[in-house]
């Protein structure tokens, strides 16, 4: 366990000292700050626009981190051969991969919560209202991107960095619409209906983590929904990681 934690700590240090991370955070912060100007435009529901922008900013950050760091975690390290010296230590390959993943997920959590706090404070200044439910929304986003990171890690174990990015993005965008695809696919015939079912059950349905509506209506999220989302995320992370560990454990490092 100490070895796994040491790898996680090193991963966190690497991430927070990497300038790429700061540029992504700054861009997302910029997006949130820009929303305050846009919300001043007298169209529609200004609060809703602000929440949408805040949510989009945090989503952008989560997606960027999952892709950039998730791929860098394994794929780039294999390419740069910076894993070689660690693979010879008394540390199993699953321990190494799990340690790195935990470190990355910790960075993801910290960054998303930092962004959420920034947004909530901004909202408070603009509307004199404490939007505590935004943290819940971001917690759901965290689950979504923890799943996506595990998928990125999985692709990284057998693919090049560029291909891993492409595969992960494809899964992400399909995952955003598997539910709709399942509904509309039968109109395209039997094959399309079958594919709709396959995609629905094989790929993660990221709609399960979208609680924007509840945020806007300030509706309290039922405990069941929170628990189901957490279990759903845990199941997909376990699945993606099992595949990743199976491949990584058998992989050769030329």
């Amino acid at each position, binding site marked *: 366990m100490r070895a796994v934690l040491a790898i996680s700590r*090193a991963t966190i*240090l690497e991430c927070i000292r990497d300038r790429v991370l700061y540029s992504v955070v700054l861009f997302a912060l910029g997006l949130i700050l820009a929303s305050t100007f846009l919300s001043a435009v007298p169209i529609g529901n200004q609060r809703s626009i602000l929440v949408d922008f805040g949510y989009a900013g945090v989503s952008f950050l989560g997606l960027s981190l999952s892709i950039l760091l998730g791929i860098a975690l394994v794929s780039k390290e294999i390419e740069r*051969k910076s894993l070689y010296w660690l693979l010879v230590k008394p*540390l199993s390959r699953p321990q190494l991969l799990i340690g790195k993943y935990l470190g990355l997920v910790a960075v993801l959590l910290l960054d998303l919560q930092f962004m959420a706090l920034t947004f909530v404070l901004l909202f408070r200044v603009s509307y004199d209202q404490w939007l505590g439910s935004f943290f819940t929304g971001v917690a759901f986003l965290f689950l979504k991107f923890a799943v996506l990171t595990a998928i990125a890690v999985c692709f990284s174990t057998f693919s090049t960095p560029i291909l891993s990015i492409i595969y992960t993005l494809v899964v992400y965008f399909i995952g955003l619409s598997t539910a709709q695809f399942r509904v509309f696919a039968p109109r395209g015939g039997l094959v399309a209906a079958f594919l709709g079912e396959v995609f629905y059950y094989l790929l993660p349905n990221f709609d399960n983590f979208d609680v924007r509506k509840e945020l806007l209506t300030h509706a309290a999220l039922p405990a069941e929904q929170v628990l189901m989302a957490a279990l759903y995320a845990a199941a997909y992370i376990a699945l993606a990681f099992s595949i990743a560990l199976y491949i990584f454990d058998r992989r050769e490092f030329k």
Partner: protein
Amino acid sequence: MDDSAAAPAIEIRDLCKVFKDHWTRKKKLVLDRVSVEARRGEIFGFIGPNGAGKSTTLKILTGLLFPTSGAVHVLGRPVSDKEVRQRIGFLPEKPEFYTYLTGAETLALVGEIFGVPRAELRRRTDELLSLVRLSDARDLPLRKYSKGMVQRIGLAQALVNRPEVVILDEPMSDLDPIGRREILDMLVALKAGGTTVFFSTHILFDVESRCDRFALLVKGRVRWTGTVAEAVTRWGSVEGAFMEKVREADLESPPDPRAGR
């Protein structure tokens, strides 16, 4: 295989490695029945021209690659054994570390993995940084290290666990003459402390001046193994042995990849 003091530090027997390439290309037999034995407490040089298969052998020896056939044992046990990894140190060729970690953090990370108690780890980190002359650069991120400094921190990380066997892949590459001399002196000091040193190189002078024995690998086959003194008696120098064996190998037909199956 037993783990008695009599078991060799490193034993490679009939090792073959075939790289399966793209389906349109031929398979390549990179190692052809390689057998090498390094005794405990000696400095063993593993030499050969570029592309001879030295790094591939060392990667199999450290578990980064898997053998196609043959057996590899370190301290009498297979290298996949966690116990063996606890007792060896490894420096890869042209090592890449985590560039945002400092030298001290890199050694601390290794110490944590080896389960070195925290108080001892601090002492060990100071000791190793001093040994490789990086005490002044302990808090500098590795991305600011020169190539020679990276090589030295690489050697330090291989020694954190006070290994019984140290395996080094081209440890003198990218070093200036002073840096090379320092590393060589460290290898001699390690031997004096009872550590077995197994290193690959194509710098023949280093082998002649510091090794007890060496193996010469050309085109994936071990062409000669023996003491430096034997080679000097027979060919006048290690370089003489090297040139002779490379010439002989050049006259051979290329190895059959099916031999490694």
